[in-house]
C-alpha cells in the first residue's frame, strides 16, 4: 500500500510539472491503461484477504479518483492556456477605422416644417397643400386683392403668361381659398410650402417657404389668434417665456390685421428669443376678411376666424442661428452637413421637438 501511495505522490508531482497535453495523455495510459500501474493494482486485489481487501480497495479508489481528477484538471488547464495563447495571437487593432458611415441629413427647412406641423398637430390642426403654380384669382382676387390695387405691389410676382393669369404663388394664402372652396366649415389647417417672389438679395430669395394657418368656426376671435400664436412661438423656440407684441398692420385678406413681433436680445453675438427690449417681426396675421369668406362661399355672418402666415426659413434661421438665407438653397455640401438634421431626429411631442 505504501508503494502505491508513493507512486501516487510521484505522479501527482509529475503531473504538476507537466505542460504538454500528449505527455499528460501518456501518463494517463501509464496509470490507467490495460497494463497501467493503477489498473494492475486493482487486478492484485483478488489475491488479498477479504479483511484487507475492503480497506485496500477503498484506498485504491481514492487514489484513482485523485489521479484522474488531477489529469482532468491538468488537461483543461493546458487547453485553456493554449486557447488563450491562440486568441492572443489573433488580436487586432480595434482603433483602425470602421467601415464608412453614410450620414444623411434632413434640410433645415424640412426639419422646421416638421417641427411646425408637430406643434400645430398638438392643437388639432391638419396639414393642407396647394400647387406652386396658381391662378391670379386664388392668389390675389379671391384674397380681396383686386387687380389695379397697390397692395399687389407688395408682392413681386413671377408670371407664367403675358396675361398675368398664371403665376407662382406669392404666399401660401391661396391654400386657404382652395381649402375653403372644396370643404365646409369649420376649418382648422396649416399649409406649409414653397412661395415665390421676384426679389433677390442677401435677405430675400426668389423662392422661400411659408406656413399658412387658418381656423374658421362659429366663434373664433382675436383672442384665439393671440393664444394660438403665443402657444406656437413658445413651443417652437422651446422657451418658457415669450415676449410677443401684436401690432396693427394691413393685409388685404385679413381685417383687423396684425404683425407679430417677438422680443429678443443679442447675448455673446447670439440671438436670445424671449428676452430683451428689441423686437423682431416674425409673422403676419388677422381675422379673415368677410370679403374672402364670401368669395369662398362661407357665410361671414355665421362663421369667422383667423389666418396667419409665417416665414419658415426665417424661423429656422432664428432658431438655429443661420445667418444667410441664400445659403439655404445653394446646396453647399459643407453647409448641408453642418446645418442638416439626422433623419431619425423626427420632431414630435413625446420625444421632444428637437434634441
Amino acid at each position: 500500500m505504501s508503494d502505491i501511495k508513493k507512486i501516487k505522490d510521484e505522479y501527482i508531482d509529475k503531473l504538476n510539472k507537466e505542460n504538454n497535453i500528449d505527455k499528460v495523455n501518456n501518463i494517463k495510459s501509464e496509470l490507467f491503461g490495460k497494463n497501467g500501474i493503477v489498473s494492475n493494482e486493482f487486478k492484485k486485489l483478488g489475491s488479498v484477504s477479504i479483511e484487507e481487501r475492503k480497506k485496500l480497495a477503498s484506498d485504491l479508489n481514492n487514489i484513482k479518483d485523485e489521479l484522474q481528477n488531477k489529469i482532468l484538471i491538468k488537461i483543461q488547464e493546458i487547453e485553456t492556456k493554449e486557447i488563450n495563447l491562440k486568441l492572443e495571437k489573433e488580436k487586432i487593432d480595434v482603433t483602425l477605422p470602421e467601415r464608412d458611415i453614410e450620414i444623411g441629413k434632413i434640410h433645415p427647412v424640412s426639419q422646421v416644417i416638421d417641427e411646425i406641423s408637430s406643434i400645430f398637430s398638438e392643437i388639432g390642426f391638419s396639414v393642407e397643400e396647394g400647387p406652386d403654380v396658381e391662378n391670379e384669382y386664388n392668389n390675389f382676387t379671391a384674397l380681396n386683392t383686386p387687380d389695379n390695387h397697390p397692395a399687389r405691389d407688395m408682392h413681386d410676382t413671377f408670371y407664367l403668361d403675358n396675361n398675368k393669369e398664371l403665376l407662382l404663388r406669392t404666399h401660401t394664402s391661396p391654400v386657404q381659398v382652395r381649402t375653403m372652396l372644396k370643404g365646409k366649415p369649420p376649418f382648422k389647417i396649416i399649409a406649409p410650402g414653397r412661395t415665390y417672389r421676384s426679389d433677390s438679395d442677401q435677405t430675400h430669395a426668389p423662392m422661400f417657404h411659408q406656413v399658412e394657418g387658418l381656423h374658421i368656426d362659429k366663434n373664433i376671435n382675436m383672442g384665439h389668434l393671440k393664444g394660438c400664436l403665443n402657444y406656437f412661438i413658445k413651443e417652437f423656440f422651446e422657451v418658457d417665456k415669450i415676449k410677443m407684441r401684436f401690432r396693427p398692420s394691413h393685409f388685404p385678406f385679413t381685417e383687423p390685421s396684425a404683425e407679430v413681433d417677438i422680443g429678443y436680445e443679442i447675448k455673446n453675438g447670439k440671438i436670445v428669443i424671449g428676452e430683451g427690449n428689441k423686437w423682431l417681426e416674425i409673422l403676419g396675421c388677422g381675422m379673415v376678411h368677410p370679403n374672402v369668406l364670401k368669395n369662398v362661399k362661407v357665410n361671414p355672418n355665421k362663421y369667422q376666424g383667423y389666418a396667419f402666415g409665417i416665414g419658415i426659413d426665417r424661423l429656422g434661421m432664428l432658431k438655429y442661428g443661420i445667418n444667410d438665407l441664400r445659403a439655404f438653397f445653394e446646396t453647399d455640401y459643407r453647409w448641408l452637413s453642418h446645418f442638416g438634421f439626422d433623419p431619425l431626429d423626427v420632431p414630435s411631442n413625446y420625444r421632444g421637438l428637437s434634441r
Partner: protein
Amino acid sequence: MKFTVDWLKNHLDTKFNNNQIIDKLTNIGLEVESFETSTSELDTFMVAKIVNAKTHPNADRLKLCDVDIGGDKTIEVVCGAPNAKNGLLTVYAPPGSIIPKNQMKLSVSKIRGVTSYGMLCSESELQLSNESDGIIELKNNEYSNKIGEKYFKNTSEKVIDLSITPNRPDCLGVRGIARDLSAAGAGKLKINKKSNLKYRGNQNINVTIKKEKAQGCTIFGSCLIKGVTNIESPKWLKDKILSLGQKPISAIVDITNYVMFDLNRPLHAYDADKIDNEIIVRSSSKGESFEALDNKKYILENDMCVISDRSGVLGLGGIIGGTRSGTEYSTKNILLESAFFLPRSIRKTSKQLNIDTDAKFRFERGIDPLSIEEGLIKASELIKQICGGEISNLDVKKIENYKKTIINFDPFLFEKTTGFNVENKELIKILEKLGFNVSKNKKILKLVVPSWRPDITQSIDIVEEIVRIKGYEYINTLEPIKTRLKPTLNYYQKLFHFLQRSVASKGYLETVTWSFTDSKINQLFRENDEEIPIVNPISSDLNVLRNSIFPNLIFYLKKNLDRGFKDISLFEIGPAFKGKNPGDQMTVIGAVRAGKISRLSWNDKERIVDTFDVKKDVIQSLCEAGIEKDDIVIDDKTPSYYHPGKSGGVYQNKNEKKALAYFGEIHPNIIKKLDIKTEGLVIFEICLDYIKESKQKIKDSKSEYKFSDFQKSERDFAFIINKNFKSQELVNIIKSADNKLIKSVRVFDVFEGENIPEGKKSIAVNVTIQSEEKTLNENDLDNINKLIISSVESKSGAKIRS
C-alpha cells in the same frame, strides 16, 4: 412717409416726447421704419486749412495744396484758384462728394500727372453765390477751431420714416398722421386757421374735363396766380423739403411739394403763359407723346388721362407734369392745379409707362376728393407770401359728385371679432376723433366715413379702426382650442415624410433647390413635357420651371465636385412641373450619388458606385415606406437621360402601367455635355403621386402571422440561358413552379464567357423549399427539382448546367 416731429406739431398739440410718439405710431399701425437725422449730400463738405500751397510741377496756373482736414490728417489737393494760399481756411470736398452746382460726383483723379484727393470749393460750386473766381475764404476767428468739421450744419431735426400700408393714403400727409395720433390720445389735432386770402379776378384759362368713358379725372380745381417772382425757398421751407429726403428746387415747386406732404394733397403748378389757350382734361390717343419733368419722353397709349392744351399734351394727370409748361425762375404767372384722379386710371397708366412719383403713389391709393380747395388755398397763401402775386377766384370743374359712405355699425361686431368689449362712449369718441360723423339709432351706430378714408367701406373696417386705436394689447390671450377635425397628415403627406427620412437615412444629404432652373439644362431632362418659361425670370439661367428635379441637382452636384468633394450623395423632394396650369406638378424625389464606395479603405476594396447601389436605396426606401417588396416588378424602360443599358423602372406590382421609380446610371452624353468630372454617377427618382395607397391598414395586415416549423431544404441550380433573358423572369418561373413549396429564390451567381456559348449566360440560383404540412422526403424534393428544371427549360429555353 418722412416728416419731422416739428412738422407734426404744426398739426398736433402734444405733451408726448419723441419716444412716446414713436411708440404710439407703432401701436396704432403706422410702422416706424426709422427715426434718425436725415443724411444730406452736403454732409461731406468740411472746413479745411491750406497748410502749404506750392506751384504744380507741370502747370503754372495750378497749385498743389497740402490741406489740413483735421484729425492730424493732411491730404494733397490740386487747385486752380488764384486765392489758394498758405493758411487759408476754406471748404474741402472729399472724393465721393456731390458738387451742388453740377451734381458731379468727385473721385480721386490725376490732374496733370499729380493725384488730387478731392477739391477745394468756390461759393458758386456750392451754390452759395455766383462768386466763382476763387475758393471760399472763411473767416479765421469763426472757423479756425472748426477744421475737420462739417461746413454745412446738419441742423435738421431727426426724421421719422413711416412705412404706410396701402390702405392708408390719409397718412401720406402729416395732418393725417396727427389726426390718428390725436384719436389715440397722443394730443389734440389743431384746427386749421381760416384763410383770409383775398381773391382778385377770375381764373380765365378755360378748363374742360371731357366726358369720356375712360376719363380718369373727375374734379379739376385751379386758380391763377399772376405776377409772382419765383425765387429760392426760404430756409424753413428748404429744411422741410430736405427732411423729406428731397432737393429744394424753387419756391413754387417746393410749396406744391410741401402741401402734398402736409395735407396729402398733390398739386401741380403750370407756367400759365406757356399754356396754349385752354386746359382740356381728356384721354390720350395712342402715339401721343410729351417730355416729362423727369426729362424723359413718353409715348402714350390709348385712354391715359392727360392734361392738355390746344397744342397737345402738357402732362399725365396725377402722375407727372411736362417740361413744356413747367415753372422756372422766370415764371411770372402760374396756374395751380388741384384735382382728383381715379386710382385705377393712375395705376394702369403708371404701370404701362413705368413711372413712379409721389403724386402717383398718392392718387393710386386715393386722395381726399374734398381737399381740392383746401390744397389750392394753402398753396396760394404760401406762394403769395413768398413769391407775391395776385390770386384769382378758385375754379372747380366736376363731372361727378362725391358720395358719402355710410356704415350702419352694430357695436356687438367689435366684441364678437376681438373678444373684448369697449364701452359705446369710448368707441364713439375714437371714431369721432378719426373724423367720423356718428349718430345713434337704437343699438346701431350710423357712421359717415370721412372723405379721406377710401379704405373704409364696411363694418369690419370699423372694428379694425377701433381696436387699432384702442390698442391690440387689450386682446386676450386665450388657451388654444385643441379640438381636432381630421388627422394631421393624409396618406401622401405621410409618404412624403417617410420617404424623405428614409432616403436621408441611406446617407443622402437633403437639399432644397429652386423650383425654376436653366432651360438649357432642363432641356436634357425634359422628355416629352412642355417647357414652362417664366415671363419675368430673376435671371436668364433660372428662366423655366423645372420639368424634372435633376437639372438643379446635377448642377449643384457639379458645383460640389468642383469644390473638391468626390463622394457625394444628394437628394431633393419637391415639385416637378409637367404643365403650366395649377396642379400640373408631381411630388418627386430625385437622388444622385457620385464617386466611390470604400474609397481609401484599409480593409475593403474600393469600387465605383453602380446601378445596384441606387437600386438598393430606392427599393429599400420604398419598402420602408410600406410598399410590398415581393410585388415590385422591375423593367428596363427608362427616360432618355438614363444610360439605356444600365437603368431600370420600378413598378408597384405587375398590374401597374406607370413606373413609380427609376434608377440607374445617368446617360454618358449628359455627363459629357455638362462636363461633370466624376468616376461614377448614378441616380434614382421616385414619383410619390404614382404610389398607390395600400388598401389594408397596418393594424389589419399584422394579424396574418403564418410560419412553418417543418424542415426546409435548399437546392442550387445553374442554368445556361439567353444573355438578354431577365433574371427576374427566371425567378418568377421558378417560383410559379410551386408557389406553396418554394419559399424563396436567390440569384447568387451570373456568369458569361469561358465555357459559356456566345450570346448565353449562366445564372445560378439557390432555392429554398419548405412545406407547411410535413417534412419533405427525398422523393418529394426530387419531384420539385425536376419540376423546377422542366418549367425553366420549357418556359425560358434555358438548359440546366450539368
